[in-house]
Each structure stands twice: as structure tokens, then as C-alpha cells.
């Protein structure tokens, strides 16, 4: 598994909702190597400000066409610039980075919220059409463009929203215990806000179901070199960018 710095041509991007976009870039070296759960580190312009690359999960890959997909929220300086790039522009991308999800589950349940649903999308693709169930939580109906993205990939889609505007009212925890009890899942994959991941991980441990989490920490290098993302694992120090971002729930000592 080798990493590259690629000059990736933007193939196109589209709007998912008012603050979220999906971008496709042509970068065959990375498309060839990337597995679900990995991420890439993107430089959005040549200026010294913004200076650092920005990490984004790989949300999908088309090996035949040599492209990868990212889904991102427009939140700060770099993502505002990214939202303005046009087809044909070049982005410098380093990747693929980190370690992916364990793919040995027989009956996987994916649990995600917010942009955590981006890497899980690639995971659903990796398990193959109809082989995953997904439980997704959001604030309101505005975030539910995600269901469209998962429709053709996952078998059952379970929904919760904070405001009850679609699906069950509440967080994913409103549905999870029952799903764990009755769904026959042998592994849960969770990516989302920390409180969600912690709650899901605890519920899985209690229910005796294996659980992988995908952590997010501020990253400067993404290569395991700067220790910006280092934190306490059980019994050892871990680097989220290199030893993760995917960990077994029981490896995590500090969220």
C-alpha cells in the first residue's frame, strides 16, 4: 500500500445541500489503492494561506475511470475555496492515508451522522450492493440527501432526526439497541460526532457486537510525522492518521 502526491484533475462537483458538496477527481494512482475508511489530504490552492492540506474521507472510488469521490461540508477557508474549483482545475492530493475498515463482517451495520456518512458510503460500496444496513442520524430533513446516496447500496436504511422531521425522532440511540438485539449484526461500523460514536461503541460492547469507529482529530501532516493527532489508546499511544482513522472501539482510550 503506497501513498502518492498526485496532481488530480477535477472532473466535476455537485451540490448535495446548502452546505455540502460532492466532488469527483481523476487520480488513478489513489483510486487504485484506496480502501474504505481511508482518507486523502487535499491542498486547495497554491497560496500559503490556507497553508495546510485538509483531510477528507474517501467516499467512493471508480477504479475503471480512475476517479475518487469526496463529500465535504463548506465550513471554513479551505472548503470555501474548494467549493469554487471548476472542472479541469488541478488539486494536489496526498493519499490514500491511514488504515481502512475491517471487511470480514458477515452482517454489517453501518451507523453514521453528518459527514461521517461520507466514508461509510465507500464502505457500503465495498461490502457490495444490498449487503449492508445503515442507520443514519441527522438534525433535520435537510441532511437527508444521504438516503439518496445510500439507496442503491444498502438494504435497509434506518433514519433518525433530532427534530423528528423524517424518520424516528431522536438520535441513532433511539433505534440502535433494538437493531442490535434483533438484527443479527456481527459488526457495527460507526463514523460521526464523538458523542454518537461513544454511545454506539458502548452499546455494542454491552451487546457483545464488534464495533469499529472512525476517529477525527485535527491533522497537520496525515502521515504519522507531526503527532498533532496522537492520543491515548488502551495501553499505547496511537496516531489517528496512521494507526487509524479506523480503530476497534476497545482500542480507544481517549475520544
Amino acid at each position, binding site marked *: 500500500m503506497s501513498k502518492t502526491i498526485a496532481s488530480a484533475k477535477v472532473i466535476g462537483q455537485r451540490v448535495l445541500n446548502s452546505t455540502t458538496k460532492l466532488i469527483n477527481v481523476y487520480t488513478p494512482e489513489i483510486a487504485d489503492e484506496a480502501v474504505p475508511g481511508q482518507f486523502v489530504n487535499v491542498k486547495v490552492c497554491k497560496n500559503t494561506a490556507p497553508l495546510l492540506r485538509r483531510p477528507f474521507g474517501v467516499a467512493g472510488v471508480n477504479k475503471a475511470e480512475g476517479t475518487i469521490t469526496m463529500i465535504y461540508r463548506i465550513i471554513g477557508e479551505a472548503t470555501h475555496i474548494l467549493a469554487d474549483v471548476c472542472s479541469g482545475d488541478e488539486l494536489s492530493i496526498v493519499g490514500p492515508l491511514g488504515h481502512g475498515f475491517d471487511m470480514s463482517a458477515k452482517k454489517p451495520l453501518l451507523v453514521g451522522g453528518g459527514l461521517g456518512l461520507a466514508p461509510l458510503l465507500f464502505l457500503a460500496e465495498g461490502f457490495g450492493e444490498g449487503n449492508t444496513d445503515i442507520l443514519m442520524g441527522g438534525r433535520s430533513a435537510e441532511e437527508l440527501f444521504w438516503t439518496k446516496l445510500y439507496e442503491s447500496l444498502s438494504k435497509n436504511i434506518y433514519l433518525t432526526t433530532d427534530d423528528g422531521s423524517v424518520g424516528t425522532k431522536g438520535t441513532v440511540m433511539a433505534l440502535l439497541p433494538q437493531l442490535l438485539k434483533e438484527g443479527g449484526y456481527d459488526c457495527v461500523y460507526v463514523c460521526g460526532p464523538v458523542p454518537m460514536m461513544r454511545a454506539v461503541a458502548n452499546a455494542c460492547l454491552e451487546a457483545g457486537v464488534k464495533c469499529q469507529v472512525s476517529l477525527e482529530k*485535527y491533522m497537520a501532516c496525515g502521515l504519522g510525522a507531526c503527532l498533532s493527532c496522537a492520543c491515548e489508546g488502551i495501553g499505547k499511544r496511537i496516531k489517528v492518521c496512521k494507526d487509524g482513522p479506523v480503530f476497534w472501539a476497545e482500542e480507544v482510550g481517549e475520544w
Partner: protein
Amino acid sequence: MVKALYDGRLAVDIAGLKMATPVTTGSGTFGFGLEFTDFLDLEKVGAVTVKGTSLEPAAGNKGQRAVETPSGMLNCIGLENPGSEYFLEHTLPELKKYNVPVIVNIYGHTPEEYGAVAKKLDVDGVDAVEINISCPNVKEGGIVFGTVPEAAAEVVRAVKANTGKMVIAKLSPNVTDIVVMAKAVEAAGADAISMINTLLGTKIDIERQRPVLGNVTGGLSGPAVRPVAVRLVYQVAQAVHIPIIGMGGIMCAEDAIEFMLAGASAVAVGTANFVQPDIAETIAHGMLAYLDRHNAQNISEIVGLALPNGKASMPLFNDAV
């Protein structure tokens, strides 16, 4: 090597340390070098300077450890490292597979501890030790050794007494008069000076109304600090006789050349490794182009040309139009 790298045109000798190019890496920004082998050929880097190493393992600071700032970044890693034992057992053997000089950045809490790490690292495969007396992110030691001339000198003496390796003293920019510090470490026996470490800074999250970094303050690095770093090198180069390894915001060959013209005999790339992980090798090519453009044979010829007493200056190209 039958043929010297780059025909030897970039070869420099820093107080006995022979480097194939004048480019080393800023400690803490290049891991142990091994993290970068997918991107560059380690043997085409002048020397690998590894993360700050202490006698015992250290966990560093809690909370957020880095944040971007305009053309720069703040970090408060706090010198997390697996300790000298681990380094010698696991990392050094891997590094020794490459034909590249290794500089180990060290720190301790007392002069004695600095001496003890130096002694431990006085082994085959380590080519030089760089004394970090300037880390703004650890409370004991760190910054005080970097701001009090006599304290700095004491650390240098302790290290010199415990190693046969070449000793580099790394200076802090957070002082009123860096020349005093430079002269103190020179007098204490340092073989070379590296500069600058990071500038102390902070950033406040205005919505949470709290400092962003777990340690409240952190070290500012990146292109934002380059003008300060070049100025400090320019001052120290006029005051000491030992070579200087210049750093602070170098992003490309042109920036590296700026430091050399200001009096640095070698340079280190730091934050740039995060942005362009092949940069430590790439800069060499830009340096060769510069030598050609200015009809120079070896990179050492340009060292200090911009200084007031600027030895033979080359003809002025590129006159303002």
C-alpha cells in the same frame, strides 16, 4: 556511489558533518524520516533530523495540538516521543538501512538529563545531536534554557562532555537579543547552530471563548515566520564563526536560498513537509537551477553573500525594469 549526488555541487560540510545537499529536516516535522519514503528518496536528503527524543518516553500535551494560522501553524505537541531506548532499538536500525546522515534532536529537564540522552545516543548510526533548548511547549527546561545564555551554555557543555558526535545548538527566536545566545553556545563548544525554533503564539476560538490549543500557547511555524527567521540568521551569521543551519518557513528552493544568502550554511524544511512531503528532495533541483543561473559551481559559494561584509557578491541580475 560511484558518482557523487548532483555531481557534488550541493555537497556541504557542516562542522565535519558531510551532507549531499544542504537540506535537512526540521525536528518534529519529518517524524523519523521513515514516514516519508513513499514520497522521496531519503538518500537524496542532506540529513534526516528526527523528532525530539528524551531519556524516557513522553506523552506530550493533551487537547488540540495544532491549528492553522495565516500562512503558518501553531503546534503544542509537547515533545511526545517514545524515548531514547525505543529509538535505539526500533527506529535507528531502520534508518541505518539508508545512506543518509542522522541528526537526533534531544531534550531533557536538566543539563544532566541532556547529557544522559547525548551519552545514550553516542552510538554508530547517529551522526550528530541537535540540542533543543528552545521548545516553547514544555514547562520545565525547554524555553528557559533557550532564553538565558548561561543556562544554554551549561546544557551545551553537558552534552559536549557526553558525546563524541557533532553538537548543534538549536536557538529560540523568543529573545530580545539572539546574538548573545548564539555567542554563549558557541563559547560553550557547540559545533553548529540551528535556528529558528518556533515563535510563541496562541489562537482563541471566539465562539467557545477559549484558547484553541490544549496547552493554551503553541509554537508558530511556517512561511509567516520566515522574515523573522531570515533576520535572525542574518544577525547571528555576522556574530559567530560556527556554521548555521537556517530554518523557519522554507517552502521552496528560493526560500532555502534566501537563508543561505543570509548566512546559513545549510537549511531545514519543517512545516513544508506537511504540505509537500517530497519537498526535502525537491529543493535540491531548484538549488541546481539557481547555481546554473548564477554561474556558481558549489552551493557553498552563495553562503552569506547578502551580508553587509558580503564576501564577493555576484553580478546583479534581474535589474528592476
